[in-house]
């Protein structure tokens, strides 16, 4: 192996050179290995890079990125041990992964690692711009870095779909629809991204393949290229040369790198300790109440779209991001003087800082501009409470028991869409022929209530309600919900009952439910006197009178 460096830089120890003297016993096997492979030369090439005097803490960000990439690749590779990329199983497989502590931590590391990578990559870019490191002869290094940043964002985008929950599904639908705005090739690009006719199984396998095969190969090659280019020209070092001899990377700068990498990884571990944010409900293409929001680092783009409605949308989706990307690509040629000191290139700094400020501003605006009704999702509707009662009283517990064929009732969690659930509730045999008991006759509304209940239960445990509320839930879910609405859930044929208690007293409601025509001769509501027990009538009347 030829040695690229003839002179040993200052600070290199006598034992660290390529030719370590033979005869030391512990080194015997390494001597043999070195004679066969020349590995000490490789170590010399990798670690003994001479750095300009004055290279400091700002130059550790590249190593931080390498460390984070290593964590992403490792955790990602291990996550594939359990992940299944099909719409029927993706959600279940993720739920299985996070069912135990190690799985929660590994997924947490991978989830937050993506955010850490984006932040570190942007900081690295800021460092390069401020230090003018993109200038000749390092333009190719700059360009390969930009492609790497794009790859990191592509990783985030494709990884986002894989859990196949609501957030994943809708973020992908939006992304693919944006891609249709691509000039000339809109249908081609969106078709390539989608795989099939709509976002589904073919999209999932496609994005999975891109995420775990295509992008990693591209990322690894580009990373190697980026580092080779960096080594070819040496690192740029301080903006003005400092006096002094070059210093070897190892161990002087390597110790700084190790310190920062360790701090970053400890911070990442702290984030990941409790796992990634919980899964949302399984992907449901029919859900019109879901409000999709992208991951935080796409919030800027998300917000930008809001300012360009209608036919101007392409400006926000393609033109502005395209101009920003083009300016970044052209930066080494726009700012071509050899001066690197940021104080002496005010124009370049002004443009870059205002661009960065724009991105930060849009991101924070997007962050704050969140819809209000998200918080309301936490409360339980009467229908959901009723659904709980139906699962208890109908034959569900025969199979959904601790020792049973299926998950116990308390641990139910929807991993399929509402159509599947409704079909299963109506006829369990249909889903599992030959295994389950024959179906119980359930009304359409009870089925809907059970579906609503299981879907809510997937997101939060049943808090428990007093007996009266549960009775009301049962009655409302079975009889009232078809025509009446309470808190936004129910039918529109009858009056909204959300604040009906402001108009009448308990006694009125009791008589109305029992025999509507006795209090309201023109009532279209059927009488429920024969269908409800005394307890149920009283519970309903008391509840309605309490709806102020």
């Amino acid at each position, binding site marked *: 192996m030829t040695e690229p460096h003839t002179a040993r830089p200052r*600070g290199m*120890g006598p034992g660290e050179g390529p030719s370590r003297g033979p005869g030391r016993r512990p080194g015997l096997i390494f001597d043999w290995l070195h004679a066969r492979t020349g590995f000490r030369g490789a170590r010399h090439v990798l670690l003994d890079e001479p750095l300009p005097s004055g290279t400091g803490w700002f130059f550790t960000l590249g190593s931080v990125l390498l*460390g984070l990439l290593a*964590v992403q690749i*490792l*955790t990602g590779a*291990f996550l594939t*041990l*359990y992940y*299944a990329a099909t719409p029927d*199983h993706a959600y*279940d*497989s993720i*739920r*299985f*992964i996070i*069912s*135990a*502590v*190690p*799985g929660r*931590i*590994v997924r947490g*590391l991978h989830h937050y690692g993506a955010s850490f990578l984006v932040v570190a990559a942007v900081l690295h870019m800021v460092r390069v711009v401020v230090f003018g490191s993109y200038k000749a002869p390092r333009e190719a290094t700059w360009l390969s870095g930009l492609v790497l940043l794009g790859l990191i964002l592509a990783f985030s985008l494709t990884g986002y779909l894989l859990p196949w929950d609501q957030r994943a599904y809708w973020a992908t639908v939006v992304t693919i629809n944006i891609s249709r705005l691509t000039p000339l090739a809109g249908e081609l690009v969106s078709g390539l991204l989608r795989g099939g006719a709509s976002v589904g199984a073919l999209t999932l396998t496609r994005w999975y393949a891109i995420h775990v095969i295509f992008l990693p190969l591209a990322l690894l090659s580009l990373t190697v290229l980026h580092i080779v280019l960096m080594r070819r020209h040496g690192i740029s070092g301080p903006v003005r040369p400092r006096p002094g001899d070059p210093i070897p990377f*190892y*161990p*002087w700068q*390597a*110790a700084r790198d*190790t*310190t920062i*990498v*360790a701090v970053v*990884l400890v911070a990442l*571990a702290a984030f990941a300790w409790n796992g990634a944010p919980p899964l949302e409900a399984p992907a449901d293409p029919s859900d019109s109440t879901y409000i999709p929001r992208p991951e935080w680092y796409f919030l800027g783009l998300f917000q930008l779209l809001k300012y360009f409605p209608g036919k101007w949308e392409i400006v926000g989706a393609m033109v502005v991001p395209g101009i920003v990307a083009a300016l970044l690509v052209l930066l080494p040629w726009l700012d071509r003087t050899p001066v690197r000191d940021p104080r002496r290139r005010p124009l370049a700094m002004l443009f870059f800082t205002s661009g960065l400020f724009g991105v930060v501003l849009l991101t924070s605006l997007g962050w704050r501009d969140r819809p209000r009704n998200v918080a309301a999702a936490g409360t339980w509707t009467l229908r959901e409470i009723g659904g709980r009662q139906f699962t208890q009283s109908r034959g569900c517990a025969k199979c959904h028991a*601790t*020792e*049973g*064929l*299926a998950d116990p009732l308390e641990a139910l969690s929807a991993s399929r869409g509402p159509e599947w659930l409704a079909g299963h509730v109506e006829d369990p045999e249909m889903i*599992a022929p*030959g*295994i389950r008991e024959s179906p119980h006759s359930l009304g359409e509304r009870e089925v809907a209530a059970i579906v609503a209940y299981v879907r809510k239960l997937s997101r939060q445990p049943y808090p428990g309600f007093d007996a009266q509320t549960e009775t009301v839930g049962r009655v409302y879910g079975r009889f009232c919900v078809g025509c009446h609405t309470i808190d936004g859930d129910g039918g529109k044929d009858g009056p909204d009952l959300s604040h009906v208690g402001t108009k009448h007293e308990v006694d009125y409601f009791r008589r109305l439910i029992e025999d509507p025509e006795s209090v309201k001769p023109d009532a279209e509501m059927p009488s429920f006197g024969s269908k409800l027990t005394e307890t149920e009538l009283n519970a309903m009347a008391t509840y309605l009178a309490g709806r102020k």
Partner: protein
Amino acid sequence: MHRRRALIVFINSVIALIGGGLTAVLGAFATMRPSTRAEGRWVRAGLAADLTPNVPVPRVLSLSRQDGWYRERARATVFLVWDGSKGVHALSATCTHLGCQVRWDEASTKFRCPCHGGVFDQQGNVIEGPPPRALNRVDVRLDENTGAVLVRV
């Protein structure tokens, strides 16, 4: 040179700590065992009235098994053997040698394994061939009310 040595020790220790931590977490993850539900559910395996004395009858059971994230609807074969009076026993059809499925040979009244020539008698004991032990017994009971044979899987 002391400073240099100290830095090398520092770098190596930090890398060892990070590597050790990652190895521990990823190792625990890779060897993660799903929480298995206690075995022992009784499953209907046909009616006692359908059995013939001393002739093993194969019954295919449908089982629901949780395999990690996958709920599997597995099938398993057991042989029900009725002694003609009150006693019924059930034998697993899985050969104790290498796991092939044995079949009942009416002509010789023996279980034969199609893979490596294992032969078992009607009680499941090894008569010839490589199987190391008798066919596994499966818990079985009769439901007096319905006349159903229940086996525990």
